[in-house]
């Protein structure tokens, strides 16, 4: 220990006193000082994070970050989006290049522990599925013996795929390309028989990239649990709290029927829970270290969870996803917020 200290001290002196670079748990301070949140998103996945021709980002993952900005700064526009590949994402978060990773990322134990991340909640309950061209006549994933499968590297998808085929004693050939557009192109050109990724991703690809979406079927088997959610790095629990409770607030708002349209009327509500949520009864904002009307800002600018879902991936979007597991617990789904009180 002494030797080590001496070595570091000597090096520090020798180098003219460079300070040891370290995270002091001050992520939140840095974000506040900067005045904007830097949010890592995907390089382009319809419904979750996709930039339009003007460089405006939209999607469920994007709105998660916008809500955080609304809570912190009262302005959902104070976000800078950094598109990251599946392989870059964790390094970008670990090294401080982004403050929050909201990039259809599956929560797993390895990622939470040995990658030094903290997941703050599940924004979308997903599962891995398979898509095949209709003309192959495949009805079930169990018939995929010997198939060539297109898959992106560096994801849980790749492991689930190998596990599923091993468990069912089938062989397959993977074609692994990192860039989403390239792997989609490989599938649609017929290089692969099957394309596999999270079911939401399959729906997005089919809706936006297929020449004729009806030529492709998504097989009924869902072979994995993929709870997707935003992550922050270890070291600043206060920052993690802001991200966690922002999302909980959106869920809670949906449960209480607070929407971006009626939030102003709701301010006059006599329901003590709503009063607490909207900061009419102060306390919650202070506890989190933000303005008391933080939830009002979130709901006005981004909306509650249901609005966010329907706007980006719901029935009236090209993705046409059902709420399914992502319905509130009161409606038979899994979305269940810890109470804000």
């Amino acid at each position, binding site marked *: 220990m002494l030797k080590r200290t001496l070595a570091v001290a000597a090096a520090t002196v020798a180098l003219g006193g460079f300070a040891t670079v370290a995270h002091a748990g001050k992520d939140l301070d840095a974000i506040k000082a900067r005045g904007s949140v830097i949010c890592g998103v995907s390089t382009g996945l319809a419904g979750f994070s996709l930039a339009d021709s003007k460089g405006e980002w939209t999607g469920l993952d994007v709105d998660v970050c916008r809500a955080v900005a609304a809570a912190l700064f009262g302005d959902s526009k104070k976000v800078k989006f950094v598109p990251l590949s599946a392989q870059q994402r964790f390094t970008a978060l670990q090294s401080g290049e982004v403050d929050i990773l909201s990039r259809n990322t599956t929560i797993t134990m390895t990622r939470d522990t040995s990658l*030094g991340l903290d997941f703050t909640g599940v924004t979308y309950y997903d599962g891995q599925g398979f898509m095949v061209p209709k003309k192959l006549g495949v009805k079930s994933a169990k018939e995929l013996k010997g198939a060539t499968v297109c898959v992106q590297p560096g994801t849980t998808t790749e492991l689930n795929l190998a596990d599923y085929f091993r468990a069912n004693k089938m062989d*397959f050939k993977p074609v692994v390309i990192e860039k989403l557009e390239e792997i989609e192109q490989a599938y649609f050109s017929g290089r692969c028989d099957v394309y596999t990724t999270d079911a939401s991703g399959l729906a997005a690809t089919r809706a936006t990239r297929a020449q004729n979406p009806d030529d492709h079927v998504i097989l009924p088997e869902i072979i994995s649990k993929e709870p997707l959610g935003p992550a922050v790095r*270890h070291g600043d629990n206060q920052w993690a709290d802001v991200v966690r409770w922002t999302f909980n607030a959106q869920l809670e708002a949906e449960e209480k029927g607070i929407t971006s349209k009626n939030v102003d009327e709701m301010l006059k509500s006599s329901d003590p829970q709503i009063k607490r949520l909207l900061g009419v009864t102060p306390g919650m904002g202070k506890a989190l270290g933000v303005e008391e009307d933080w939830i009002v800002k979130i709901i006005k600018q981004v909306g509650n969870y249901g609005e966010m879902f329907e706007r980006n991936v719901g029935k009236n979007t090209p993705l046409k996803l059902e709420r399914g597991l992502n319905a509130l617990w009161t409606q038979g789904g899994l979305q269940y917020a810890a109470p804000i009180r």
Partner: protein
Amino acid sequence: MAVDARFSSTPPKPKVAPWNDPVIRGWFFQIVVVGLFVLLAVYLVQNTMENLERQKIASGFGFLEKEAGFEIGDTIISYSAADTYGRALIVGLVNTLRVAVLGIILATILGTLIGIGRLSSNWLLAKICEIYVEAFRNVPLLLWLLLIAKYIRESLPGPRQAWNLLDAFFLSNRGFYVPVPIADPIDKYVGIAFLIGIGVAWYVARWAKKRQEMTGQQFPRIWAGFGIIIGLPLVVWLLGGAPLKLSVPALQGFNFSGGVVLQPEFIALLIGLVLYTSAFIAEIVRSGILAINRGQTEASLANGLTRGQTMRLVLLPQALRVIVPPMTSQYLNITKNSSLAIAIGYPDLVASVNVTINQTGQAIEGILFIMAAYLTVSLSISLFMNWYNKRIALVER
């Protein structure tokens, strides 16, 4: 003292203060620089370790022993998802070496032909070779790779409509399937006969060279060598009853089974590397040949050698001395450029490491592994080429 000074070859040192002595000064500054460098390295390593520890990020090479759990699409040594990360990295390394070695061989052959072609007295041939060189070396390799990979995927038919030759060779967007002989016990003896053939051919070549130096008589040693190397195993195989069972690719389920396959990604990468690098090699070969005095050609033609003999016996041996050092760089380039495989989905070393990094989160170890692997391969190529360069260097007589 005075006596010593008179007899020794170096003059006596004038007396100077140690801080003015150039030798001591030289040592002093070198030690200071090395010391600072070591301190910097220690500082960086310590800092990294501490930060990793603080963020509870795992470190160390223990992960190499763990089960990888992912599949690799194109392997020539056995591998399954149940093997370790270490094995997955080896599979990637073998894939890198496979494309690099084949690329080096093919690019050398093609490049030499194009280079000689540019010097041809045939105007059309020379122009075509020139256009080839300019087209391939002036566009980034990555673009060629993406273009070739896309072309293969888009233009070739699916496996059920595959282009078919003799019902044995199939070309589709799943790759090029060719039949291979099934292993037979006699193979071992055929292999031994092949090795013996190489030895005998080498001995014959040496004998022929000696005879030519003594008597001036020539012996067709190249043809004889080929005959021995191919003939001997052939005789053994025929004596063994000429067993020939082929594993012929056939459509089964989604895809072909049987035979061996050259996958589209491999073909695309190989074609891209060969086309790109051969353009550079062509220029190197051309410069090597042009570096030789024109008088050499004229003299050898005047001596009655044919044009082919002039090229083979007079020009190329001398040109090689100019060609080999820059050629080494091109071989290293092929090896390193093969890492562009990642863009088109060929599972090379970088791809294996990237997946491993992602599953384990141990980026630093993974990158170190890549660097060590490329360094080893590149240094091996350099060592070999330097040895070869020394061997062919002009011996002054």
